[in-house]
């Protein structure tokens, strides 16, 4: 299984492609051409690297968490601290790249979808930095469970549009963003926040996030002198997971684990475990695994984590699953919240609820990996935005 890293869209095996209205094809072609040219242009590469150094705060550090690891068993656990990036998650990596491309294309307006609000906040941040107009589509349900992030986006100058159609979550926010894009494509760049969607998004967004794994792989070698035995990340659309997996795809000794949201549990039908329980189909412009009924209607997903509450997944993950290169497992709301509590108590690091799914997965891996194994986890986001949900969940608000 050599050279998995070299795979680029439009297709990852039978997955990917472009299942979108013809009206968008010219914009996707323009984006693809602009991205290809930028990638080969040292000026662009240097500009993005400099932004990451002076604005994002890259490289992000690696923290070994010994007290947390002891709870998992006889393993070592290393966190790649994307939570320390400006705006508090990995999302900024992709947003700065795409915002630079938007400027290259002469577009003056960006639109974005958001679930947990991390991508919306990152997009609003980039819009402020580059002087672009910004509209963020967010499911009405999510605007309620992430009210503080709505305020952050507004403070940054973005307009937040609550989406009231369908399940009123991330899936419907993407639909609404696509409708906006079809209408305003001449002036507007759709700053898609995950590795899903039509080509070139899955490849381009992955490339912008691959800085996570590239740094982490080099840091493991230089600071610890070995590669981890396993790499773990949470998977909703799959951007932080592919970002850290990509550098390790051709390291056969490194196992890759993606943890999906199992919501109420893997034995219930209230989950967002797309790769475990979905079937290949077409959603949001690409062929990939998705949660759907026998008629091909998209099913609603369920998760306490807004960022993982999505019935689709990026096509590269579908490909890696079918190849057997990555393993995907489910983590329930309860397991994730317990992991969130444990990392907070043992290490003084409060992770995002999304990220807590990966940490819960590590607690399980500790029981099955050989003694002495090392696991690298993408600590994709910090938990500040989740304080209200967590406080409610743990009964810390007094009146609840």
């Amino acid at each position, binding site marked *: 299984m050599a050279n998995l890293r070299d795979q680029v869209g439009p297709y990852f095996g039978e997955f990917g492609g*472009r299942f979108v209205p013809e009206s968008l094809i010219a914009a996707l072609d323009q984006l693809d051409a602009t991205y290809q040219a930028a990638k080969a242009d040292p000026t662009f590469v240097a500009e993005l690297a400099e932004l990451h150094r002076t604005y994002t705060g890259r490289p992000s550090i690696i923290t070994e968490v010994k007290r947390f690891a002891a709870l998992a068993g006889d393993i070592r656990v290393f966190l790649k601290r994307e939570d320390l990036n400006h705006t508090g998650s990995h999302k900024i990596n992709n947003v700065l790249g795409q915002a630079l491309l938007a400027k290259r294309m002469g577009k003056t307006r960006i639109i974005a979808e958001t679930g947990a609000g991390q991508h919306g906040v990152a997009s609003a941040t980039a819009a402020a930095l580059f002087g672009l107009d910004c509209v963020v589509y967010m499911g009405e349900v999510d605007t309620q469970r992430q009210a503080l992030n709505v305020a952050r986006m507004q403070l940054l100058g973005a307009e937040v549009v609550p989406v009231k159609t369908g399940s009123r979550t991330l899936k419907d926010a993407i*639909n609404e963003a696509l409708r906006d894009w*079809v209408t305003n494509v001449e002036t507007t760049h759709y700053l898609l926040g995950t590795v899903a969607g039509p080509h070139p998004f899955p490849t381009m967004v992955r490339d912008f996030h691959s800085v996570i794994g590239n740094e982490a792989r080099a840091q493991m070698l230089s600071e610890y002198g070995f590669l981890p035995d396993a790499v773990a990340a949470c998977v909703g659309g799959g951007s932080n997971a592919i970002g850290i997996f990509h550098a390790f795809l051709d390291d056969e000794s490194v196992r890759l684990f993606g943890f999906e949201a199992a919501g109420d549990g893997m034995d219930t039908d209230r989950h967002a475990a797309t790769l475990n329980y979905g079937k290949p189909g*077409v959603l949001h*412009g690409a062929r990939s695994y998705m949660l759907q009924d026998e008629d*091909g209607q998209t099913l609603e997903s369920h998760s306490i984590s807004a960022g993982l509450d999505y019935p689709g997944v990026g096509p590269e993950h579908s490909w890696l699953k079918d190849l057997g290169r990555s393993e995907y497992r489910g983590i329930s709301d309860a397991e994730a919240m317990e992991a969130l509590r444990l990392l907070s108590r043992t290490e003084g690091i409060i992770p995002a609820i999304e990220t807590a799914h990966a940490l819960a997965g590590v607690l399980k891996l500790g029981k099955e990996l050989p003694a002495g194994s090392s696991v690298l986890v993408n600590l994709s986001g910090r938990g500040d935005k989740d304080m209200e949900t967590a406080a409610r969940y743990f009964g810390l608000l007094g009146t609840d």
Partner: protein
Amino acid sequence: MKTQDTIAANRAAGTDTLIGYFPLGYPSLAESIEAAVAMVEEGVDVLELGVPYSDPVMDGLVIQEATGEALAAGFKLRQTFDAVREVSSRVDAPVLVMTYWNPVAQYGVEKFASDLQAAGGAGLITPDLIPDEAAEWLAASDAHDLDRVFLVAPTSSGERVKTASDLSRGFVYAVSTMGITGERQEVDTLARGVVSSVRQQAPEQFTAVGIGISTSEQAKAVNSYADGAIVGSAFVRAYQDGGLPALRSKVRDIVSGLRK
């Protein structure tokens, strides 16, 4: 009956062509069938029956709400064939089905084509299937002698217009404007360019203009430079406002302008 023959006959007779959309299962399957039949009785030349879908990214609020209601009322994909069978047995007009791609992909492309042909359907309009991704559908529609309507947009390159036009059968769907379905004041400026691009790339192909057409005047104007006008949201809104009588009246209103 094939769509191309209907449009060709209208052209030979110097008559304009009206293509009318209505969503299946709205507000119930039986009522949507009656609505479709009534539209032809009032003068619609070609029917476009919409399959309700959970994520209709090409549709505006009017059609989103109607198809959402159909799904909430329990619409099942297999009812598409029941409806096509009944409608095509009751009217003398081509019955096209407008569907997003995933329902067809899950049903099985070949089986969908076979069942649509058996039900008497004319073919498919596929708003989120571009020719580049359509290999399976091209084969199935050839095997079952079905129309296949691809879309061209104001932003489509000449090369893409040519491909979509060459591969379409029945007509090419010229998207009048950048945007989603819904009624608009003005449709002509970009639409003329799209139609003329099709004429240039594929002189033998018919072109119908859709998106935004809601009045008799717009339908008439479009027919002056294209081979047909497609009306959707305006019919659905009429039905929402006043049921079957309002739908009949809206169709009559548009047709009366075309037949002047």
